[in-house]
Structure formats: structure tokens, C-alpha cells
């Protein structure tokens, strides 16, 4: 058994494997299949200050080695989370982290203040990159100035771990990463989904109700890996990598490229036990290659 413990910002994880927001519900959806407390961290559904109905149906389109979603941040709001979800998830023996989205700076700040009071919530993932709703924060995430501003203001009120989730729909993601680092982010996570579109040629209609949606799954892995590589070189804070991770080898690639931790999203839908397989697979890899700790492979790519 290699040592899988890893600290990412202020978070202490028993292993580098987390679940990506919006793909793992509140964790409990998976407890029939796995012991969710074995996972390093669970990033819960995208949460907004006030409850949201999300987008109209259809919200999903399958694409080659991937999928588009247009869920649109359906959630019951921060209040509901605090009163109804938090009590049940805070007892899970792992890091439960809230993915926070907003449409205005004030929304972000108000929600972050409320979450700051939860003593068993080790951190939030600030989502400034949801492509599916105007209010999803992508407007914040695609410019350095606005990304910096929202991180600065949230940082002022939020004292625990602040992971900032970056959008891949930009010319230079390292620039944004540096901007949020400068404002006090504890870590950055990437990538959120890539803006894409699917069309039914026979019906001559877009498949999604929203026309465009967010692309995830193995199709995006090469792009995600490149961005993690770029960002890891650009910032000093830890990087959390994701995008198309389906197995331990994929996760290891992200860590070699410089990620201190990974998140698994779409793969959970196909194999609800994938997180555990990835954790075990990383351990097996470390043993086979003679590493005593997972820390040894972070950024260990030989170029």
C-alpha cells in the first residue's frame, strides 16, 4: 500500500480522487454501489443562492466518446442545502465540498458567507465556468478581470478552502489561473465542460433545449490534459485535474501533468464504482513503479 494522502490547499484528502460536481449528486445516490467514504472528496451539485428549476428538457445529447449536458444548475438553493442536505452529508467521513455558482457578484458573496458558517464543510469549489446558463458564472470565468473580482470578494468572506473551477472556453487558461491565484484561491480545478452543440439532421433541430451545452467525457481528455499541464506550470497553488477520466491510467496522466488531485465526472454514469477502481488502480500503479507516495508522481512527466 502506497501512501495516497494528499493536501490540496487547505483540504486534507485520504486520496487524490474526488467526484466532479453535477455528476455525483450529493454522494448518497452512489451509496448502493460503493462505500462513498473511501473517496478523497465529494464535490456536490452546483448550488446557487436561490433555487433554480434548471433548463427545459431535453438536457442531454450523446456524442462520440462524450456527452453534452444542459442541466442548467437545477438545485434547491443554498438555504435548502444548509438545512436539508448538509446534516446528512456532514457525517460522511470524507471531504464534502459545495460547488457554488452565481449570476451576480452579490449572489456569490451572500452564498459564500452562508457556507462559511458550516463547521464541517472544509471548502467550496467556486464555479465561474458553467456554460449552460447566463447565470452560471462563465461570464466571470472567461475574463481575467471578472474572475479576479469574484475570487477577491468571495475570499474576503470565505475562510475555508477555496478551490476555483476554471472554464476551458478561453484563449489562455493560465492567465485566468494566475489571476485567481493572485486573489487568494487555495487551488484551481479544471476543466469545466467545453461549449458544444448537437443537431438531429433528420429533424433539422438542435438536440438540446438550450441549443448549446457542455461537453464532457473522454472526448475532451486531450484538451483537459493540455490545460492542466499549462496551468500547473503557470501557478504555485495546487491544481485539480478533470475531463474524461475513465480509469486509473487517465487519472495518473493528469497527475503526471501536474495535478495534485483529480475529479471524476461523466465516468460515474457508466460505472458507478469507477471512483473506487481509480483509487485502487493508482495504488497498484504506485506499488508497481516503486513509489511510496502519490506525491511522487505529481508533475513527474519527463519532457
Amino acid at each position, binding site marked *: 500500500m502506497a501512501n495516497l494522502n494528499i493536501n490540496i490547499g487547505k483540504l486534507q484528502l485520504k486520496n487524490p480522487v474526488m467526484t466532479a460536481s*453535477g*455528476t*455525483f*449528486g450529493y454522494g448518497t*445516490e*452512489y451509496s*448502493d*454501489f460503493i462505500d462513498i467514504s473511501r473517496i478523497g472528496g465529494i464535490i456536490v*451539485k452546483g448550488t446557487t443562492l436561490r433555487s433554480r*428549476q*434548471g433548463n*427545459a*428538457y*431535453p*438536457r*442531454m*445529447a*450523446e*456524442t*462520440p*466518446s*462524450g*456527452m453534452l*449536458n444542459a*442541466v442548467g444548475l*437545477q438545485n434547491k438553493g443554498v438555504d435548502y442545502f444548509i438545512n436539508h442536505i448538509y446534516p446528512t452529508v456532514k457525517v460522511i467521513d470524507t471531504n464534502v465540498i459545495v460547488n457554488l455558482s452565481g449570476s451576480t457578484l452579490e449572489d456569490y458573496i451572500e452564498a459564500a458567507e452562508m457556507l462559511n458558517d458550516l463547521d464541517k464543510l472544509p471548502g467550496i469549489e467556486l464555479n465561474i465556468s458553467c456554460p449552460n446558463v447566463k447565470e452560471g458564472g462563465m461570464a466571470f470565468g472567461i475574463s481575467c478581470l471578472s474572475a479576479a473580482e469574484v475570487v477577491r470578494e468571495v475570499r474576503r468572506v470565505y475562510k475555508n478552502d477555496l478551490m476555483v473551477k476554471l472554464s476551458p472556453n478561453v484563449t489562455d487558461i493560465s492567465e485566468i489561473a494566475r489571476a485567481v491565484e493572485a486573489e487568494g484561491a487555495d487551488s484551481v480545478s479544471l476543466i469545466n465542460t467545453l461549449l458544444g452543440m448537437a443537431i438531429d439532421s433528420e429533424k433539422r433541430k438542435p438536440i438540446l433545449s438550450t441549443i448549446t451545452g457542455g461537453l464532457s*467525457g*473522454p472526448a475532451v481528455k486531450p484538451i483537459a490534459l493540455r490545460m492542466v499541464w499549462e496551468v500547473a506550470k503557470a501557478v504555485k497553488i495546487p491544481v485539480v485535474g478533470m475531463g474524461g477520466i475513465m480509469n486509473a491510467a487517465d487519472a495518473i496522466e493528469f497527475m503526471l501533468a501536474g495535478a495534485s488531485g483529480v475529479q471524476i465526472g*461523466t465516468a*460515474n*454514469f*457508466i*460505472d*458507478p*464504482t469507477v471512483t473506487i477502481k481509480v483509487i485502487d488502480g493508482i495504488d497498484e500503479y504506485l506499488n508497481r513503479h516503486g513509489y511510496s507516495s502519490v506525491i511522487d508522481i505529481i508533475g513527474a512527466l519527463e519532457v
Partner: protein
Amino acid sequence: MKKFMLDLIVTKNETLNDQYSLLILKSPEKLPEMFPGQFAEVRVDNSPTTFLRRPISINYIDYETNELWLLIQIVGEGTLKMCQVKVGETLNLLFPLGNSFSLPNQKNAKLLLIGGGVGIAPLLFLGAYLKDKDFECNFLLGGRSKDNLLQLREFEQFGNVFTTTEDGSHGERGFVTQHSLLKDSNFDYIYTCGPTPMMKAVASYAAKTNTFCEVSLENTMACGFGACLCCVTDTTEGHVCVCTEGPVFNITKLKWQI
């Protein structure tokens, strides 16, 4: 209800016609209890275009032999691949998923199960289940033509079978909702599954006659167990997931214009 991910062994793959196949899958472990209306998410390997699992209703379950039936209509790559599995191969299933049809409250209630196309799949299981609980079922099954009426022999074991075909090649000519049964009799419970226009017509009949009516909805699903929120339908309670709050809905909950 606890959900499982299991590799089931294909013990039979029967081509019913060029569009439909019946798969019988055997579980090495004891099959968990399931209820009619529930479905499985089937993994389709070996194809770049079938990245996600496919939701398929439980067509029938035989606890004694530990066998599960799936009735598949070929509509695309995924269902095509499923129908090509060979006896002895395995299929990976997540199941049982979703809610189920409700049992009638009165023992001697008059029940009508209306199915069209592949929508008959969950109704066979429902019929078997109801018969087991001593209810008497009437099945009204519709199809474009005789060839699209499936599993008639199986349905007959569990109740009275009425049919309609659009070309008149079997039963009454027309759509299920035009069948004389609906004019001549009154039912206490209607359960339906099939193409949405058909279900809407049934729902509208039920609403007009003030009959209890449950429909089983289709939807594009990414996970099948409530994790992705991709499969919503609009209800009186807002957007709810078809995979967890459904697939069976009482029509009074839906926002259908009926």
C-alpha cells in the same frame, strides 16, 4: 431499494422480427426483488457511439430460474448491438431503477393495461405481477400491423388480450384509443406505456372518464439513478427526474395538455 451492478449471462436471444428481439439474462447471484415499471441501465460495449448506458424496462422476471427478460426494439446503434449479443456472453446491468406502477386499492377493480410498440415491455411484467396478486387484467395492445404485436401468447396467460392494428391485420383497425372496449366498458385503473402521442390520447381518455391513470415516460438518460439531472420532466412539482421519481407517473402530476 438497493441498486446493483451485475454482469448477467445471456441465455437466450430470440429475434421476434426484424425490429424486435427478446433477451433472456441469467444472474449468477439471486436476483433482487423488482417491481413492474422498473428498468435497467444496460452497458453497450464496443462502440464509440454508445458511450452511455441504455435504459431498458424489465419485461419479465423469473425468480425461480433467476432470469430477467428484456424486450428490445432496434432504433439505433445501442439497441442494435444489444440484439447482437450471443448466448453465453454477458451484459452489464444497473438495476432495478426507478419507481413502479401502483397496485389498485380495490381487489375487484377493473384494470386496463394499454401498450403500444415497445411500450408493452413493462406491461407484461405488470400483468404477471397483478395476476399473481389476484387481479384480473385486460390488455389492450396496439401496433402498426400484426408484426408489431409482440408477446401476445405471454400476455394471454395473465388476462384478456385485445388488439388494434393500423392496417387491420390483427384485432380492430385503428389506434388503441379507438378500440370499442373503451366505449363499451368502464375501468377503474389504466396503466399505459408506449409512444408519447398514444399515452397522451390515453391520458386524455382517462381524464375525461375520471379514471386513475399511470403512464411510463421515456426520456434521454445519462445515469438512470438520479445523479445527473438530465432526465427531467415538467410536473406540478416542477422539474423532476424521470429516472427516480418515474418512469411511472400518475397523469394528474404531469403538465400534459390533455
